[in-house]
């Protein structure tokens, strides 16, 4: 039976990406100029899926509002996972919405359509009960590692502590319709149902085929990873707006002043405006309705929707949330720094700053490398900030 319905798991917050996930789940964070999930949907539609079932939970309305009832003429049905009790539990919520064998993907990682096609084909041709995409990855220990014997999956283990693994589970699966019963029969661990636990049970019965894949597979674990994600997307030209010249993508409904400079690679989303003397790029991604004032410098930076950067400001190695307002003459000089998240310290990360949704920097604000500014924080004129700034904080000079 052919696989034509895809279930996309997009219910989890992605807590390690806080503070960017305050108002939306990880799949809705930007991969360059549009949400990660849009790239996932593209891969599925390009691979011929003709029905999408999206499991939503945390801040579900942001997913529903963005895509509405269809994406590229393919109907999208939404299923709610009210409590986030694991990926198996999430898939189980889609049971009533699926007839026939589902293709299942994680909604929070960039994948390519060739991988989806390979898994669907491998499953259709060989079965037996499940197929999953596997890839070589240098950091297998950070993800779900797998072991294959003659294409049969023999082991699947989440974040192994030993370094002997080199293949990872790419998070693209095809199952027969019996998967829902299998999940329901899987014992919960700590109250949760992980899809990998069910796959491990099927693997014990030699019912899972591993499909080796290559191509773009990008995951963002921490906020600064969104810079790498954007760079990868731009390098591969996975951009949905028209290309003006090599590596310069400007939406038809964006306005770029004749005296502004766009340095490749760079993407400018719809409704955005770039003023005279601004220098944007390389590796800059502007979402929709972004305003870059006169003489602003934006380099290796993701400016999400509705962001506004006023005249003379400099943003380097910066990730913003939506509706961020950076007043004139503010500077994020960028570079490497130790980033502190909670009690953990990540050494030598290249990060200018993370400015979460609706941060306001009045003007002449300077931000040290590695700073995380929480949502709706208000940095008053002349403030100098570093480290972690909590949600809604008022920072005076």
């Amino acid at each position, binding site marked *: 039976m052919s696989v034509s319905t895809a279930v996309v798991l997009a219910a989890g917050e992605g807590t390690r990406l806080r503070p960017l996930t305050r*108002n939306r789940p990880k799949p809705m964070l930007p991969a360059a100029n549009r949400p990660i999930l849009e790239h996932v949907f593209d891969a599925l539609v390009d691979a011929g899926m003709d029905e999408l079932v999206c499991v*939503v939970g945390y801040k*579900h*309305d942001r997913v*529903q*509002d963005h*895509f*509405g*009832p*269809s994406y590229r*003429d393919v*109907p*999208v*049905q*939404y299923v*709610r996972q009210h409590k986030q009790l694991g990926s198996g539990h999430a898939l189980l919520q889609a049971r009533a919405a699926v007839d026939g064998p589902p293709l299942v993907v994680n909604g929070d990682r960039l994948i390519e359509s060739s991988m989806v096609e390979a898994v669907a084909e491998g499953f259709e041709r060989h079965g037996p009960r499940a197929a999953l995409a596997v890839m070589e990855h240098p950091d297998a220990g950070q993800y779900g590692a797998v072991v294959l014997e003659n294409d049969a999956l023999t082991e699947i283990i989440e974040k192994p502590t030993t370094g002997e693994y080199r293949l990872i589970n790419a998070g693209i699966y095809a199952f027969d319709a019996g998967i829902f019963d299998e999940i329901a029969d899987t014992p919960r661990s700590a109250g949760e149902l992980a899809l990998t636990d069910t796959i491990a049970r099927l693997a014990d019965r030699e019912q899972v085929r591993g499909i080796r894949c290559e191509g773009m597979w990008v995951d963002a674990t921490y906020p600064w990873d969104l810079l790498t994600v954007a760079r990868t997307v731009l390098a591969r030209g996975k951009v949905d707006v028209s290309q003006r010249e090599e590596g310069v993508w400007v939406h038809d*409904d964006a*306005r770029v*002043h004749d005296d502004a400079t766009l340095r490749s690679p760079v993407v400018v989303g*719809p*409704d955005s*405006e770039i*003023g*005279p003397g601004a220098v944007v790029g390389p590796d800059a991604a502007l979402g*929709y*309705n972004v*305003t870059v*004032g*006169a003489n602003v410098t934006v380099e290796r930076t993701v400016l999400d*929707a*509705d962001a*506004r950067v006023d005249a003379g400001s400099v943003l380097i190695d910066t990730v913003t949330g*939506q*509706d961020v307002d950076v007043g004139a003459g503010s500077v994020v000089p960028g570079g490497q720094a130790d980033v502190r998240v909670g009690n953990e310290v990540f050494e030598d990360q290249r990060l200018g700053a993370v400015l979460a*949704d*609706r941060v306001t920097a009045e003007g002449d604000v300077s931000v040290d490398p590695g700073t995380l500014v929480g949502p709706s924080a208000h940095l008053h004129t002349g403030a100098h900030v570093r480290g972690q700034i909590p949600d809604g904080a008022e920072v005076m000079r």
Partner: protein
Amino acid sequence: MCGIIGCAGRDGETLDVLVHGLSKLEYRGYDSAGVALAGSDLDVCKTAGEIDDLRAALEERSPSGSVGIGHTRWSTHGPPTDENAHPHLDCNREVAVVHNGIIENYQALRDELSTAGHEFRSDTDTEVVPHLIEDALADGADPEEAVREAIARLEGSYAVSVVMSGVDRIFAARNDSPLVLGIDDEAYYLASDVPAFRDHTDRVIYLADGEFAVVDADGYRVTTLDGEPVEKTVDTVDWDPEETGKSGYDHFMLKEIHEQPRALRQCLRGRVDELAGQVDLADLGDLSPRGIHLVACGTSYHAAVYAAQLFQQAGIPAQAFLASEYATSPPPIGDALVIGVTQSGETADTLSALREARKRGARTLAVTNTVGSTAARECDHAMYIRAGPEIGVAATKTFSSQIAALNLLALAITSVGDAREVISGLRDLPGAVQEILDTSTARKIAEAYRDAESYFFIGRGLHYPVALEGALKMKEITYKHAEGFAAGELKHGPLALVTQDTPVFAIVTGDDEQATKTVGNVKEVEARDAPVVAVTDGASDVERYADHVLEVPDTHRRVAAVVANVQLQLVAYHTADMLGRSIDKPRNLAKSVTVE
């Protein structure tokens, strides 16, 4: 107010196509529904109730025929009963008619037909039509000629479709009520609105008043009522049919409230240049009006009241009128530009006001959401608000988009000093609305006051129409009494109604004279022990006198009205939801009111 569907060339599927089409037209009315299929026989099924009731009635039987018509009704003449449901039949049960509109001379026709021995089964104006056709057939006219003769006798507004036993054609005509033809390769459709057949085809012909169409499996023919051939152009519509799905929300209204950031972006797209401080509405040409009359109904009227203030601030004499009043007692128009604000572009009262203005030589402009609508076609100019289809009967996103569009219009035809600031404010609007959607505590307010009998809304200046709109939303979907007042007017009478059981919603943003005065009015209310909900950006000290606060971001004052209104939309929605109301289809109301 009703919806019509017709279909030819879908042998075997006719019934499914009709019922599906009716479900897409339910926003036009939903108190009774019916279908008639014709081939060698005429097969009719109709019932009081919603489309689901018709589906249930159809389960016991499955009418078939090569052509068919269907109708969903919103009562104007006679209560919603099985008898009053369309289609209506002649005495011999060989002619079936569906109709949207009001036949003004129906009483005279009915008397005449009754005297001649015709028996009427319903209270409707429509039923005269099949009997007139029956008479013409009896006099020897062929089917097409009989329908033409009957239509020629009607006065008033109508979109009519007719099928007959033994005739595999549909006859249709319109005057002052919408009717669209859908063209597919081997099938043809007729409907009051495009979504009814949009799942089958995107090619459409908009019929004009006084036109007559004959449709069968092989094609269509459009003529005048007298039979003169008319050349029609086929348009392509680009609506996504699935936009009519609820995308995971319980109600269209909530979905549409959430669609506002996107709708606003679409409204502004390509029309503003903030860095240059310019608005580009070149397709409207040079309007430069000396005066402006805005005509509208319901929510659109509130947008018109808001817009009148914008034009006045720019030094242009401007006034908003209720379209139904304007149509029958128009003021001196002079050389004013008359702007009709209508979501559907089919609102009969607004069309009537615009026609009255045209008759008096005025230039007219339609501000509408519906491309190809009657208002857009009849006016000298049309500006589209680009909100996308709105299905919920209570208007939400179209109000916000109307406000955004009217701001663009004001910027384009007036020269105000702060254009760049206003454009900047408008471009901040989608993000500001998203902030409300992310942070609103409206559900808590709804929980606190869901049992109140009465709600009052007050605001001043641009917040006055928001107070009116806040009250209208509350009325429409909660069925509770609600009134909006200009804040200063409260003490001139309505204050007598204010008690500890009447929550008062006060919209106060900024810290200017208007805000200070409104805060004064809030104190008057507070002194009467009424619970006060302040919708505020925190710039004034209104919070000191309020029991609850609904926060809005600090934005340009023109934009603040829209953002404040979103909070009130959410309060009305959540209150209605908790009260278990039929939110998308409130009782007695229809989406676009195509009768006067």
